[in-house]
């Protein structure tokens, strides 16, 4: 960062991002008819700021566009223009365009001249029709109520010079203007002879210190143009009597410049109503994410230490009701609170991702010719920053999918007795310690027959496979279901729904589809609030202790020997109330010591998203607790079937099982197991 301007430019782009978000938010409020004057003001301020600083870096296209945009917003602000539906549409598109301009400026490129022409024209039309002033008065010639000024009619001969009469009003002093400085500046333009006009000076006893009494006649010789002279007085027009005439004869009674009379005290300014804006933004600071992560890590260690301490205390047979026991309980309570607070630092409202979606929907609507209304709910719901960062792509894809595949064309909708405009709803809410994000549409729903047909074509299932509706819907998550050739240019950007699902699973989440033919479909994402702790079931498998993420556990049961059926070479199936689920000898696949006996131990039924269920044998369930996730891939390497590690209360390291990985692997070994499944189970 040797060039300070370069550093400031980076600041500018960061600031632009924030301003664009604020703008988008305001425009959406406008679209929903929730805009009050403060919202419009905030949008105006954002566009104005982007323009104001952008000029300093020579982003002319950006500034020019922002200027037209700002003019319309200004009309809106002053009530010259109503925020009707059409106006808001233009504004929203202009907002997108401005974001594009900023992005282009950031990359050092320019937008194609044709790209934004229609928007610029639409903006011009909006401001043009109602504008009585063009909003573009040059700096020096505003329609101000300045004192009469005699303007020389004939062009000034270069060397003539000027005769200036300058009589400040009290308001000139009130605004902290200083005649001496103006005279000094005049002196730079040529040689000046200043004569003080003391005619207005009253006798001392009636002198009001807060009034201006002095006036000056200035003879300026030299070849200064008239504009240069006028510019000197630019700040004080309206606060003085000023005449600038071409010099004809030298004036008498000359006093030199330094003998200026002392100035009267500045009078009290007239009282004006102040205009404090009501919204006080929340105070915030920027913190390096690494620092927060270190804090999260330390708190994690603290939780582990506390658990170890509790265990040691219990081993010493110190009763819980003792002062030590009470102290520990209090410590545990405080730690949990501390942990939650620290985790909360990493959380952010999902708004930052959700806010990108309206634009996407507008673009998709334009591309597909469909009419789409996006409803966004729960955007203040907070989630871990990492989750938010990785949510953008899956959400984008799901929304594309909803508009492209879900919604019908306006004609089809009308024929189906639906309103022309389709609705896509994006919502977020906290539910049971997790966040649930839903993308739903009121479109045609998933065409199950077509999905099956396609799955057969792609060789994903055998023809004639009996599948429940849910299973059919889930086929769209199969790798290879959508191929580049097949998908339209909107939905297909090299990402299929399988990748969406993979992303969600990587975040420790689940994705569920619900679909009703002709009424629409709904994708629900369930995500952990944080990636740092997890609710787990601690189980003993063989000689070791493992943790199973609670989110994947369907139920635990003690099977009767008669429920276990042999299936092929040493493989077993478990009959769970009529449905057959592969029974996996967990100790064997994890190589965790002695093979446990399914009929003696406990079976935990786990479910993986999309790939189905599996029954895992464990020797015992030891408890259920929140564990701090400690990744080890950075320090070791990836181990199949293991997601991460944690440290238990007794100080032992326990591995956290990767249920999805295990299910996928085991089911792959079992082959096309679906055919054996009774339908409707």
């Amino acid at each position, binding site marked *: 960062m040797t060039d300070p301007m370069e550093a400031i430019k980076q600041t500018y782009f960061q600031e632009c991002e924030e301003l664009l978000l604020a703008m988008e938010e305001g425009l959406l409020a406008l679209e929903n008819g929730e805009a009050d004057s403060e919202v419009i003001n905030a949008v105006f*301020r954002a566009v104005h700021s982007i323009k*104001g600083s952008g000029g300093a870096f020579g982003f002319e296209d950006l500034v020019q566009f922002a200027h037209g945009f700002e003019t319309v917003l200004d009309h809106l602000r002053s009530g010259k223009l109503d925020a009707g539906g059409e106006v808001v549409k233009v504004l929203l598109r202009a907002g997108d365009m401005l974001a594009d301009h900023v992005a282009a400026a950031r990359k050092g490129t320019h937008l194609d001249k044709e790209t934004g022409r229609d928007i610029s024209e639409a903006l011009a039309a909006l401001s043009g029709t109602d504008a009585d002033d063009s909003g573009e*008065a*040059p*700096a020096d010639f505003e329609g101000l109520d300045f004192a009469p000024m005699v303007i020389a009619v004939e062009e000034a001969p270069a060397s003539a010079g000027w005769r200036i009469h300058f009589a400040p009003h009290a308001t000139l002093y009130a605004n902290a203007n200083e005649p*001496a400085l103006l005279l000094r500046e005049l002196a730079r333009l040529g040689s000046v002879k200043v004569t003080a006009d003391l005619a207005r000076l009253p006798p001392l006893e009636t002198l009001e210190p807060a009034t201006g009494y002095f006036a000056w006649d200035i003879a300026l010789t030299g070849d200064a143009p008239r504009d240069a002279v006028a510019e000197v007085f630019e700040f004080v027009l309206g606060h003085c009597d000023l005449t600038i005439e071409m010099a004809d004869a030298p004036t008498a009674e000359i006093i030199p410049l330094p003998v200026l009379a002392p100035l009267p005290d500045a009078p009290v300014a007239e009282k004006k109503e102040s205009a404090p804006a009501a*919204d006080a933004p929340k105070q915030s600071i920027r913190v390096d994410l690494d620092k927060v992560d270190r804090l999260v890590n330390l708190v994690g260690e603290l939780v582990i230490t506390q658990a170890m301490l509790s265990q040691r205390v219990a081993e010493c047979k110190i009763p819980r009701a003792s002062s030590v026991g009470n102290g520990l309980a209090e410590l545990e309570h405080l730690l949990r609170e501390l942990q939650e607070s620290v985790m909360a630092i990493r959380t952010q409202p999902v708004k930052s991702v959700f806010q990108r979606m309206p634009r996407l929907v507008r673009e998709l609507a334009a591309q597909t010719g469909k009419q789409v209304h996006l409803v966004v709910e729960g955007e203040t719901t907070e989630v871990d920053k990492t989750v938010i960062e990785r949510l953008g792509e899956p959400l984008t894809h799901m929304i594309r999918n909803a508009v492209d595949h879900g919604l019908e064309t306006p004609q089809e909708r009308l024929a189906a007795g639906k309103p022309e405009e389709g609705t896509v709803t994006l919502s977020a809410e906290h539910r049971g310690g997790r966040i649930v994000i839903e993308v739903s549409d009121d479109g045609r729903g998933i065409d199950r027959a077509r999905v099956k047909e396609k799955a057969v074509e792609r060789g994903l299932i055998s023809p004639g496979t009996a599948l429940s509706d849910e299973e059919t819907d889930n086929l769209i998550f199969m790798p290879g279901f959508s191929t580049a050739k097949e998908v339209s240019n909107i939905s297909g950007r090299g990402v299929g729904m399988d990748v969406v699902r993979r992303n969600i699973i990587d975040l420790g989440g689940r994705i569920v589809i619900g679909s009703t033919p002709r009424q629409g479909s709904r994708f629900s994402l369930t995500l952990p609030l944080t990636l740092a702790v997890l609710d787990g079931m601690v189980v003993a498998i063989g000689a070791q202790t493992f943790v199973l993420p609670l989110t994947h556990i369907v139920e635990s049961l003690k099977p009767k020997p008669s429920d276990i059926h042999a299936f092929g070479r040493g493989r077993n199936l478990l009959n769970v109330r009529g449905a057959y689920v592969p029974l996996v000898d967990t100790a064997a696949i994890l190589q965790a010591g002695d093979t446990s006996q399914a009929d003696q131990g406990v079976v935990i039924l786990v479910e993986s998203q999309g790939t189905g269920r599996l029954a895992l044998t464990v020797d015992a369930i030891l408890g259920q607790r929140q564990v701090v996730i400690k990744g080890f891939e950075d320090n070791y390497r990836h181990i199949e079937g293991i997601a991460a590690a944690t440290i238990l209360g007794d100080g032992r390291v326990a591995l956290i099982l990767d249920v999805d990985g295990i299910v996928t692997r085991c089911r792959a070994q079992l082959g096309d197991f679906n055919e054996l499944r009774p339908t409707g189970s």
Partner: protein
Amino acid sequence: MSKTILTVDDSKTMRDMLKLALNGAGHRVIQADDGMAGVEALAGAPRLDVIITDINMPRLDGFGFIDQVRKDPRHRATPILVLTTESDAAKKQRAREAGATGWIVKPFDPARLIAAVNRVSS
């Protein structure tokens, strides 16, 4: 001569640019990020030679801020320059009615900024 100048602007870009230009001319800069912060800065500030303020700001805008400055006996004779864009003619007038001494048109070049500062303070 080194001057102490308070800059009030909600845009960090603008604050940084002002600081760069003013520091370059040998002036000391105190920064505030909106009108309210500007008022707070007044209370703790030493003698200010010039105040430079934006108009469009959250919490307390430039007009409100100028009004507060002019009400403050310690600062009511302090010159105030308003940052404005060429399209803000009416706003310039309003700022002057509110008590602004002069203005700087954005985007400014450092030389013009310094000239404006010099025009309002010795």
